[in-house]
């Protein structure tokens, strides 16, 4: 059961490297065939210093920890009860292979609907790169069946 008292709670920071091999695997998994996402020469010809990350991939690297769902379990949102309700990205700078990203997340909101049967957890994440540049923000809304 979600508890409004957890609003503002910070989750442990995640640091992840952006790797070329992983980006090629991701491109294959989503059916992306534009060579800028898999061929470094094509990426450079398009003006990137290495392979760019596809728009939603930034969400994935935050899960590069041994137990990515533990944060939610610890606030009353076990894996078998959660669904992804909404996702928002705001992009400020390009991210390419070779970058190292830091994810700082906190619980921006918790609320309930349907007389408490449905809980909503809003997680906000600031993403910065190895130069301390703010590259993106992510806002995820999880729906929790309670």
């Amino acid at each position, binding site marked *: 059961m979600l508890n409004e008292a957890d609003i503002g709670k910070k989750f442990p920071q995640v640091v992840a490297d952006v790797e070329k091999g992983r980006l090629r695997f991701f491109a294959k998994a989503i059916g992306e065939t534009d060579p800028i996402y898999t061929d470094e020469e094509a990426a450079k010809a398009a003006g990137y210093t290495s392979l760019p990350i596809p728009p939603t991939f930034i969400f994935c690297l935050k899960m590069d920890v041994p137990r990515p769902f533990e944060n939610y379990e610890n606030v009353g949102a076990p894996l078998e009860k959660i669904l*992804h309700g909404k996702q928002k990205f705001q992009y400020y700078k390009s991210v390419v292979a070779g970058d190292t990203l830091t994810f700082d997340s906190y619980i921006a909101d918790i609320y309930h609907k349907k007389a408490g049967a449905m809980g909503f957890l809003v997680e906000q994440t600031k993403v910065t790169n190895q130069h301390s540049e703010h590259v993106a923000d992510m806002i995820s809304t999880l729906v929790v069946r309670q």
Partner: protein
Amino acid sequence: MIAYDTISPGDELPELVTDEISRTTLALYAGASGDHNPIHIDIDFAKSAGMDDVFAHGMLSMAYLGRLLTGWVPQSAIKDFEVKFTSITQVNSKIICSGKVEEKFERDGKKILKLSVDAKDENGNIKIIGCAEIEFD
């Protein structure tokens, strides 16, 4: 690159139709995305959670919508991308991604397009609705 001046509100993006989302697709997406939630890849877990079968990651369909956008404008022009997941996507669905220019205006010297986007299955059932903001220099 799409020329800003030639775009008008009401213009539609070229539709993107994916291959069928097989169980292999879900296994590959789980590995590549790092989202190892067993609800998408382990039917035993899905049943224990009250589902009839595994179902696709919502973020896989959002990634398809991302392809719709990056197939139309350079990725660096995408400033804002937001979706709501409205229903679960079953295994063996094909996803049809659509987008439309809703607004065109200038803000702080930047040329902005606001798009609406959605992802449906082949039966026309909406899976995701959302919007994106594109910025031209």
